[in-house]
C-alpha cells in the first residue's frame, strides 16, 4: 500500500491546514507518512500543493504523481489534474470531466465559516481512503484544545460532512502497520531541535525562505531551552554577531538561504581566521539571485565549500533524513567547537518542509562538549599545537582573550612577521584539516555493497535514491547506494573503498552541473560517470531517478 494525496489550491485557501489535519490523523492512525510542499512566492492566490504520502512501509520521499488530488480551485484541477494519472480527483464545487465535485467551501460556509473547508476536505479524504474518522476527530480536538468549544465542534461537524459527501467514492484501506510513530517532524524542526538540545544559546538571522522555518521553530522553543533569538538587520550582521557571540562563549547558530549566505561569505572567512565555532544553516533554493524562493535545489554546494577568501578549514554537512537533520546538527555544533572553525549545514526547501513520522527525537537538553579552556595568566589564544587546535578560552574568565582578523602571533596580536607568525599560524589552521578529515563521515551504504552498479547521492537526494535503489533492486540486486551526509572534507579513504570498481556509476543531485560528481572527480574518487540531475525546482523522486537510470541516454555525463 502506497498512496499519495495531493491537496492543491491557492495560497491562503487552507491547503496547508488541510494537509496538516490529514498528516495528524494519518500518523495517529498508525501509517507511515511523508509529505512535500510545493508553494509559490506569494501570500495569496497562485497554486500551492501539499503532498501526503502514506504507506505501511517507511517512506523517504514524495512520489512524482498523486493518486488522489483534492483540488480546491478549478486552476488546481486543470494544471495538476493531468498529472494525476489513474487517480481520483475531488474538486471543490465545480463540475468537471474526471473529477468528483464536492462542495468543500459551500459546506463549510453552511456550517459556519468558509475557512473550515479544510476540515471538510480532510473528512472527505479519509472517507475516500475508507479510514475510520476517529483519528481525525481526535486530532481536531487536540489541535483546537485551546480554542472555544464551538470551534472544535464546528470543525468536527465539517469533517463529518466531508466524510458524507465523499461516501460515493469510498474505498477501503488496508490496516495500519505496526511500528509507525505519531511524532511528525519537518526537516526544519529536526534541525532546530538538534541545535536547541545541543546547547545553542544564541540564534540570529535575517528571515529567508526556506531557512525561516528553522528560525521559527527556535523562536518557539526559545523560552524552553533558554535561547536568545534576535532578528538581525541583515545577513552580514547575523554572521558577525555570531562571530562575536561565539567569541564570548555562547554556542550560536545563524540560518539563511543562498542569497543571504552569499552575503555571509566574508564573515565565514572571519570565523576561519579567528577560529570561532560558528554554525551556519544554508537551506538551499534555486538561484541565481532571487531565483525561485519557495522551490528546492541542491545548487549551492560549490559556493558553500569554497565560501570565504583565503584558505582555512571548514566542514559542510548535508543530512539526508529527518533523523540525520537532528543528529548531524548536534554533531555539527560539537565539531565546530572541537575544531574551532565554521561549519555549514546544507539542506534545501524539500527537506526543510518535508514532514515524516518517526521515533520521537529526544527533546532533552544534552549540551555537546564545547572544549573550553580556562586559560590562565600566560594564555595565548593561538598557541601552536600539533593538531592545529589551540586552547580556547572566552573573555570574562581568568585569561584575556585577544583575537584579530589580521594575521597574528600566538597571542592574537596583529603581526606582519611572515616567517615567524604568518606561516606557522597558517599551517596551524590548515593542520586542523587532518583531524577533520579523519573524523569525517564515511558514506553510508545501502543495498549489496559490491553490486556492479553504483548510485551516489548526498544530502536530501538520499530519500528518493533509497527508494529508487529498492525499486531497481527488486528483481536483481545490481545496485549499491552510497550516501554522503558530509560533503566537505570527504573521508577519501572510506569513500574510495566504498566506491571500488563498478561497471556503472551515476551521481544523483538537484542541480544542473553535477557539482558533487565534480568534487568526487577532483579527488580522484570517480572517473567520468553519469549524472541524474534535477533542477526544475521540484524535489527528486524515486520515479524520476528510476526513469533516468533505466532509459539509456536519459542521464547526462557528469
Amino acid at each position, binding site marked *: 500500500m502506497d498512496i499519495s494525496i495531493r491537496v492543491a489550491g491557492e495560497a491562503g485557501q487552507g491547503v496547508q491546514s488541510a494537509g496538516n489535519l490529514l498528516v495528524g490523523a494519518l500518523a495517529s492512525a498508525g501509517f507511515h507518512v511523508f509529505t512535500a510542499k510545493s508553494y509559490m512566492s506569494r501570500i495569496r492566490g497562485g497554486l500551492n500543493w501539499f503532498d501526503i504520502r502514506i504507506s505501511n512501509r517507511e517512506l523517504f520521499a514524495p512520489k512524482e504523481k498523486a493518486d488522489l488530488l483534492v483540488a480546491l480551485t478549478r486552476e488546481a484541477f486543470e494544471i495538476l489534474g493531468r498529472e494525476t494519472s489513474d487517480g481520483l480527483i475531488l474538486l471543490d464545487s465545480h463540475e468537471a470531466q474526471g473529477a468528483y465535485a464536492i462542495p468543500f467551501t459551500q459546506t463549510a460556509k453552511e456550517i459556519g465559516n468558509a475557512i473550515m473547508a479544510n476540515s471538510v476536505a480532510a473528512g472527505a479524504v479519509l472517507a475516500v481512503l475508507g479510514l475510520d474518522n476517529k483519528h481525525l476527530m481526535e486530532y481536531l480536538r487536540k489541535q483546537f484544545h485551546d480554542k472555544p468549544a464551538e470551534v472544535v465542534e464546528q470543525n468536527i461537524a465539517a469533517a463529518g460532512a466531508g466524510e458524507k459527501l465523499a461516501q460515493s467514492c469510498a474505498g477501503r484501506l488496508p490496516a495500519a502497520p505496526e511500528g509507525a510513530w505519531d511524532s511528525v517532524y519537518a526537516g526544519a524542526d529536526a534541525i532546530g531541535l538538534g541545535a536547541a538540545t545541543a546547547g545553542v*544559546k*544564541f540564534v*540570529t538571522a535575517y528571515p529567508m525562505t526556506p531557512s525561516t522555518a528553522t528560525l521559527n521553530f527556535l523562536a518557539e522553543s526559545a*523560552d524552553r531551552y*533558554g535561547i*536568545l533569538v*534576535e532578528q*538581525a*538587520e*541583515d545577513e*552580514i*550582521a*547575523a554572521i*558577525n*554577531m*555570531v*562571530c*562575536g*557571540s*561565539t*567569541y*564570548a*562563549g*555562547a554556542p*550560536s547558530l545563524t540560518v539563511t538561504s543562498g542569497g543571504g549566505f552569499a552575503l555571509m561569505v*566574508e*564573515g565565514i572567512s572571519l570565523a576561519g581566521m*579567528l577560529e570561532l565555532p560558528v554554525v551556519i544553516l544554508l537551506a538551499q533554493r534555486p538561484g541565481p539571485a532571487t531565483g525561485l524562493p519557495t522551490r528546492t535545489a541542491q545548487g549551492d554546494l560549490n559556493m558553500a565549500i569554497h565560501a570565504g577568501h583565503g584558505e582555512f578549514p571548514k566542514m559542510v554537512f548535508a543530512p539526508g533524513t529527518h533523523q540525520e537533520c537532528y543528529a548531524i546538527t548536534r554533531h555539527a555544533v560539537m565539531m565546530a567547537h572541537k575544531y574551532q572553525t565554521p561549519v555549514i549545514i546544507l539542506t534545501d526547501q524539500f527537506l526543510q518542509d518535508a514532514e515524516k513520522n518517526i521515533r520521537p527525537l529526544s527533546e532533552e537538553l544534552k549540551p555537546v562538549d*564545547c572544549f*573550553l*579552556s*580556562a*586559560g590562565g595568566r*600566560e594564555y*595565548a589564544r593561538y*598557541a601552536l599545537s600539533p593538531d592545529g587546535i589551540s586552547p580556547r*578560552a*572566552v*573573555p*570574562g*574568565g581568568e585569561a*584575556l*582573550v*585577544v*583575537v*584579530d*582578523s*589580521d594575521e*597574528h*602571533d*600566538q*597571542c*592574537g*596580536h*596583529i*603581526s*606582519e*612577521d611572515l616567517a*615567524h*607568525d604568518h606561516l606557522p599560524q597558517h599551517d596551524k589552521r590548515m593542520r586542523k584539516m587532518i583531524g577533520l578529515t579523519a573524523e569525517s563521515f564515511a558514506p553510508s551504504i545501502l543495498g549489496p555493497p559490491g553490486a556492479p552498479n553504483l548510485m551516489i547521492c548526498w544530502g536530501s537526494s538520499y530519500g528518493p535514491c533509497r527508494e529508487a535503489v529498492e525499486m531497481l533492486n527488486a528483481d536483481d540486486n545490481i545496485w549499491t547506494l552510497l550516501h554522503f551526509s558530509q560533503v566537505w572534507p570527504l573521508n577519501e579513504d572510506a569513500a574510495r573503498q566504498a566506491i571500488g570498481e563498478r561497471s556503472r556509476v551515476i551521481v544523483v543531485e538537484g542541480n544542473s552541473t553535477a557539482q558533487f560528481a565534480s568534487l568526487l572527480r577532483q579527488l580522484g574518487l570517480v572517473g567520468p560517470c553519469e549524472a541524474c540531475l534535477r533542477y526544475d525546482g521540484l524535489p527528486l523522486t524515486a520515479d524520476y531517478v528510476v526513469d533516468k537510470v533505466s532509459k539509456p541516454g536519459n542521464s547526462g555525463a557528469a
Partner: protein
Amino acid sequence: MDLARADTKPAWCPGCGNYGILKAINAAMAEAGADRKRLVLVSGIGQAAKLPHYLAEPANVFNGLHGRAVPAATGIKLANHELNVVVTSGDGDMYGEGGNHLLHAMRRNIGIRCFVHNNQVYGLTKGQASPTSDSGFMTLLQSHGVMAQPFNPMALAIINNVTFVARSFSGDFEHLKSMMIEAMKADGFALLDILQPCVTFNKVNTFAWYRQRVKPIGPQHDPYDRRKALDLAFMWGDEIPIGVYYRSKRPSFESQLALLKHGPLAAVAR
C-alpha cells in the same frame, strides 16, 4: 614565553591624533577602574581600529572585519551582558561600511560604547574621502572634491534616542577622558565621536583647525532636550560643540530581555 612578536607598539604616524585617543582611553579605563577581565575592546579595520592592540594595560580584544565592529560587539554583549564592551574604530569603518549596523544598534539601544576616531578620511588605505569628509575635500580619488554632504553621526544618534551622545577632541586630553568615563557609565548605547586629526592625509581638518573651532558645551544645555541637542548636532563650522549633546532614559536592549535575568548565555570557565 615569547609568544608575542606582534605590533603592540603603535604603528601610527608621529603626531597622529590617535595617540591622544590612546592616552585618554588608558587614563579613562584606569580612572574608571575598569575590570580588565570583563573589558572587551572591539574594532574593525583601519588605523583607528588598531588601538586595542596598544593598550597600556591589556584587555580582551576582538579586532574583526572592516565595518563590522558593531554587530560583533552586539553579539558579544548578548552572549555575556556582564562584559564591558567598548568599540573603538574609524569613521570609515563605523559610518561607511558599517552604517547599517550602527543605525540598527542605535534602534536597539544595545549597551555598547562606541568611540569613533573621526579623522574625516580613510587613513589606512591612504587618503580617500570618508563619510564625514567635508564637501569639497580633495583627494586622489575625489579629484573634483567630495560632492556628498557629510554624514552627521550626532544627529543620527539623537533621532534614534540612544542613551548617550557626545563629541570630543583628541587634542583635549581632559575633556576626552571625561567623555569616555561618562560614556562608560551609560546603560545603553553610547556614541562618542572623537575629532581626530590625521596629519598625513587630511591637511584641512588639522589640530589647529579643530582647536580653533571646538567649544565645550556649557552647563546650561539640557542633554535630555532633543531639539536643543539637534541644534548642537547641526553646528559644524566656525564653532563645533564638544561635550554631551544628548542623553535619554530609554532602557538598554539587554535590560529588556527576560532571559538574561538568569545570567549570561555564555558559560565562562573561571
